[in-house]
């Protein structure tokens, strides 16, 4: 079982090593002739306006909070989905209904949020 994590470990460590080596190599090997134009902030060819340290709107935070709650829903549904395949046919319907009740209760919350205008983007 622990062996099945080896690919994940390999991907993670390779990504880390690749990123660190490439960033450091490019700063080591690349020519460095900075001028004023090169050192200015790149903003898709436009002249940058204002600072990067602006306050963000609270709308983003609300979306993040809703995201975490539905993320937790997925965490609860994940073991259900894994065990679903192993059930006999009669129990499949039962477990589907159980999960639908679970989803429905949270769907009520989504409707509430929608009606309350939390997800409105204006």
């Amino acid at each position: 079982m622990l062996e099945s994590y080896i690919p994940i470990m390999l991907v993670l460590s390779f990504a880390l090593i690749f990123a660190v080596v490439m960033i450091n190599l490019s700063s080591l090997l690349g020519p460095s002739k900075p001028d004023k134009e090169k050192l200015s902030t790149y903003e898709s060819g436009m002249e940058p306006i204002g600072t990067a340290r602006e306050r963000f709107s609270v709308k983003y935070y609300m979306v993040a909070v809703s995201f975490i709650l539905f993320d937790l829903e997925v965490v609860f549904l994940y073991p259900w989905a894994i065990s679903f395949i192993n059930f006999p046919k009669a129990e499949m319907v039962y477990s589907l209904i159980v999960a639908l009740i679970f989803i429905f209760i949270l769907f009520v919350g989504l409707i509430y949020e929608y009606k309350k205008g939390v997800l409105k983007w204006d």
Partner: protein
Amino acid sequence: MIYYTILFYVFAVLAVATAFYVVFAKNVIHSAFALFGTLFAVAGLFVLLNADFIAITQIMVYVGGILVLMIFGVMLTTKIADIDIHTKNLNRIPAILFSTGITVILIFILFTTKWNIKPQVQNQETVSQIGKLMLTTYLLPFEIASIVLLVALVGSAMYARKTK
């Protein structure tokens, strides 16, 4: 089993080192990103403990959710990203008393508890077993969990839009 021990120490050192950085970093954003390393290393420790579901939950909820929320919290606050956080000692004597007390208690627990040392068992997948239990023995807690989530959802909506 030597690999197991090596991996354990790699994750343990990673967790402790990044946790130290979280506490001592001068920049809030740096602490938040160091916390990413801590939470990830703890997820790795959970995998080594044969608790793959908890490891997945750790990554999904803490790394994917809570940490994003923290970084959002930093971004929403004015002028918090650029100030230096001073880590200095306040209330030295109560702090020393309190932390030595906790250390003594922890060492006491470490030496008096009868630790159950089992032989290394073959790791097996736990997620489907948890799912089976959720649909049979723990059906009611499973459904109640969704009501708890619903309450949190409604509560956050109430706070966000007080008027209307």
